């Protein structure tokens, strides 16, 4: 009985929650100019693939944008995990002088809005000759300390006894990190991977600044460039966002499996 109530409430909330996105999908199948009607049309009449067809005509460059986004998002995500996890481990478990300061120092990087650093950053990337390159897109995003902070908090939640047992057995710090901490951190690592991937995928300001050649646009910049300058083409915008959102949704579903896998702390009776 209680379970049934739970499912119904959850479904109602889910329905309300999903309505705006359903609307986005429906609008993408409407004719441009007929997107706002009175009374409201829940089923597009006429049902039109016009927006998708328009986008398909530009397919070659759009595929290139998709590719750029995929490359930068994937590489960034991978590199972020590789450099953030050890740093997080150092800040959560290893004891060394200046650790507290280093943590505050790392956290502070989250507190400055991007608008403040965008110009100095561009000047620097320009001087390094990395404008219009993948590295130019990726490097600044690697410096964001979000992953370090998230992983640090999760590492602190892992019982110290597990590591201490391994160290007593003679494991080096690196092996403790690699063989014990990492396997237990599946959900946290997946979370960081998802956020980094999505953040990079949807990033607009930096790719806009760093890429002057159409070939180097990412999907978010490219799709924005397709918009008319004087009026918002609603159907096209919705169709474009359906196209842009689908890959990440798929990526989430893949990463999401890791979040389901619970951590079974066998071998340690609390």
């Amino acid at each position, binding site marked *: 009985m209680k379970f049934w109530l739970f499912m119904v409430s959850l479904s109602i909330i889910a329905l309300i929650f999903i309505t705006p996105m359903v609307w986005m999908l429906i609008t993408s199948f409407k004719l441009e100019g007929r997107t706002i009607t009175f009374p409201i049309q829940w089923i597009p009449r006429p049902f039109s693939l016009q927006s998708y067809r328009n986008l398909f005509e530009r397919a070659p460059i759009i595929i290139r944008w998709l590719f750029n986004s995929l490359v930068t998002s994937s590489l960034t995500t991978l590199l972020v995990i590789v450099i953030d996890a050890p740093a997080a481990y150092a800040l959560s478990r290893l004891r*060394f002088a200046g650790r507290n300061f280093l943590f505050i120092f790392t956290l502070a990087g989250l507190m400055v809005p991007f608008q403040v650093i965008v110009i100095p950053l561009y000047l620097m990337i320009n001087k390094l000759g990395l404008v219009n390159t993948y590295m130019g897109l990726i*490097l600044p995003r690697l410096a964001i300390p979000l992953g370090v902070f998230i992983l640090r908090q999760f590492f*602190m939640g892992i019982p110290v006894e597990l590591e201490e047992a391994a160290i007593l057995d003679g494991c080096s710090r690196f092996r403790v990190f690699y063989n014990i901490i990492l396997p237990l951190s599946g959900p946290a690592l997946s979370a960081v991977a998802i956020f980094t991937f999505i953040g990079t995928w949807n990033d607009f300001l930096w790719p806009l600044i760093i890429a002057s050649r159409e070939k180097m646009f990412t999907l978010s910049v490219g799709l924005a460039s397709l918009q008319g300058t004087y009026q918002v083409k609603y159907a096209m915008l919705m169709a474009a966002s359906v196209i842009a959102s689908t890959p990440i949704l798929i990526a989430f579903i893949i990463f999401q499996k890791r979040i389901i896998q619970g951590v079974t702390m066998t071998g340690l009776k609390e």
Partner: protein
Amino acid sequence: MNIKTTVKYRRSRLNEAISGYLFYLPFGVVYLAFLVYPIFRGLLLSFYKWNVLETPIFIGWGNYRVMASDSTFWLSLKNTLYFTGVSTPLLIVIGLAMAVALNVKFRGQQFFRALFFSTYVLSISVVATIWLWLYQPQFGLINYYLTRIFHIAPPSWLADTHLAMNSIIIVTIWWTAGFNIVLFLAGLQEIPQSLYEAARIDGAGGWQSFWYITLPSLRYTILLVVVLQVIASFQIFGQVYIMTQGGPYGRTRVLVQYIYENAFNYFKMGYAAAMAFVLFLIMAFFSSLQFRLFAPTKLGKKGK
């Protein structure tokens, strides 16, 4: 302790210190080069007057003095504080509640998780556009059904001075709840099932389990979510800029928007940098408060 064990002790402490620095190094290098250095360059500008075309002029505390009597600055700060103060508790509670609900094992769990997270994958222009339409007073979806079912006058969601900021808060909650849900879910996964079983055997009910097992175990995660949430809320910009441009009458203009306007519309780079620095200090202050609240020992290093 004789001299041999002292040396061994010192050497292992040294090893740990070296490991510490080595583990941090790869990230540290990138961080220093591509974030810290630009931040310094950017914030140093706060002591100058620079309109991009001419060379910067040093003016010391000039920008800060102007800021103190700038009414737009104070209004923007107030709006930002309101936004943060209202949206943060809501996002924490909703995020946690949804995560607990989505942690229950049932068929379709994966589907529901994907559903509640799906809004987070949308880009900001899409979110703003969808909700601009939803909030439209005459033709928008919300007022369409609101007037038909409840027969009230259609509220002006984005143009009414009392409603505007709250409308933005609703959009933000809808958009970003998924982020908190994912983090809380990951935190819930870390809690051993055995704890709940033992509690059940001892006769504890659902609420007691939550209060005495779930919440304490989520200590580090809650701190994480709260800190991130506050930092992110203080930096809100996109939704407001696209949906209301700070209106009506500057009632939704947030601090980052004012910084942006000063930098890229008025070309007052130094002034913008000074405000960014003040914003940074405010965030630092609230973050340290949170660490003290949720993890009273040294920077939350409980147990180590």
